């Protein structure tokens, strides 16, 4: 197992957001978290990357407890988080954003090679290299957010709502890239996505969150047969 989470409780101030969350992410898989607005998907990813601290519970990555580590220490372990809303540095150039992606020690040494490789995956970014990130289109920004994370040499990639605010065609392109990451780059992926149809299409395993709890889970191919899931999440 790449990631194992056990009975995690997370609070914002006095308000409990996540309740007894337990989940596993298998090596080399795409695991999806789906659920309505406010169900806690983003909160969970932020807790894994160390931005938030759980009140209780454990998060083990490659059998090592990571609760209590600083975000930069978690990055050093190879867990890279592509946050909701991309969170690019808008006044820095595309190049500088990619440079910062490789900030951690290991990735820094291979910056040049990685840059070249990643620009062949995302050729559009090559044309925009010296443009400010804030001037890119929504789709380009999402590509840059993923490319920036790849510069960090992730082994586990946390991606939060990559489809947010994008046109259907662009969403397809973004997900083509995500599938490639798993298949040719052998990166394990944990994905938070409201677009349940897309999530089922690409993932191996799915967790359904509602008001901070895991209410359903299963292999994507099996869970998608479920009457209730189809009705509530896929509208069919």
């Amino acid at each position: 197992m790449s990631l194992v989470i056990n009975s995690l409780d997370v609070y914002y101030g006095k308000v409990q957001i996540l309740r007894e969350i337990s989940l596993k992410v298998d090596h080399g898989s795409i695991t999806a978290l789906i659920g309505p607005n406010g169900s806690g998907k983003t909160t969970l990813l932020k807790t894994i990357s160390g931005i938030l601290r759980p009140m209780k519970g454990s998060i083990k990555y490659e059998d090592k407890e990571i609760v209590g580590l600083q975000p930069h220490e978690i990055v050093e372990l190879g867990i890279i988080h592509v946050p909701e809303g991309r969170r690019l540095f808008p006044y820095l150039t595309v190049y500088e954003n990619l440079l910062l992606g490789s900030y951690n020690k290991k990735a820094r040494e291979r910056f040049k090679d990685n840059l070249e490789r990643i620009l062949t995956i995302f050729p559009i970014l090559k044309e925009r290299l010296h443009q400010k990130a804030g001037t890119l289109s929504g789709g380009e920004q999402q590509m840059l957010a993923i490319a920036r994370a790849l510069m960090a040499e992730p082994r586990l990639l946390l991606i939060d709502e990559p489809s947010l605010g994008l046109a259907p065609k662009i969403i397809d392109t973004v997900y083509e890239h995500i599938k490639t990451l798993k298949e040719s780059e052998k990166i394990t992926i944990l994905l938070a996505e409201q677009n349940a149809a897309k999530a089922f299409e690409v993932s191996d395993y799915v967790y359904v969150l509602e008001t901070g709890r895991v209410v359903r889970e299963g292999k994507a191919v099996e869970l998608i047969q479920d009457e209730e899931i189809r009705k509530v999440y896929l509208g069919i």
Partner: protein
Amino acid sequence: MSSEIIFAQAIVDGLLMGSLYALIAIGLAMIWGIVEIINFAHGEFLMIASFLSYFLFIYLGIDPLISIPLAFLTTFGLGYLVQKGIINRILEAPFLTQIFATFALLLIIRNGFFVAFGPDIRSVTTWYSEATIDLYGIKMSIVKLFATTIVIIATILLHLFLTRTYLGTAMRALSQDKTAAQLMGIDIKKVYAIAFGLGAGLAGIGGALLTSFYYVFPEMGVPFTLIAFISVVLGGFGNILGPAIGAVIIGVLQSIGALIMTPSMKDILVYIVFLAILLIKPTGIFSR
């Protein structure tokens, strides 16, 4: 002397002094923009450096201009420790708490120096203290020219650091999105400490430069802090050029103010222009 020469002399004097203000203002702007803290004790770092190079001169005969690197390193180290030991612990605290922290620092350092060294005004005289060079009738003090050169070099180096290195780029990123910066693997507390150190270090260079032509005393930082604040408000802290230009404008205004009014009224022109700009463009001249 013709009035053109007198006027040109005032402008040159203003530019030279303004460049020194610029260095101090850039330091304040770095701390303000990157660490997001208002450093009321900024002038105290300048004062510490000035005392340091004063004593090095008096006791060891080290020329104040030679002690610049040491003054920088000392104030860098102090700034680093202030951030690490105090400010990093109150990052999540309310804005007022942070303000009081740097204000308390100001009181402790300034009064500490009063107790240790008294209110005496000290100064040093070197062979070049009074030396000037003459350019078409305009006299330029050699130390001030030297100071301006150092300021320009320091500013260029800082610019290269901020644009060409990982750490410098991380600092600019941090001022745009702190959480995203953490997700890049940036140890933000460490980077904050280095940024505070650099800001304090720039004030320190300013202090060491002042030693050879200004007075050294515990309250010497006051006007420089004030001018740095006005420069940052005028020029913004988005980049290093804004506050620098703000500071140079202030230097020139002071100098012209002293000429057209009396020297003791020189700051009035500065404040009139400052208020006028704030009324016309409250966000500063170069805000984006």
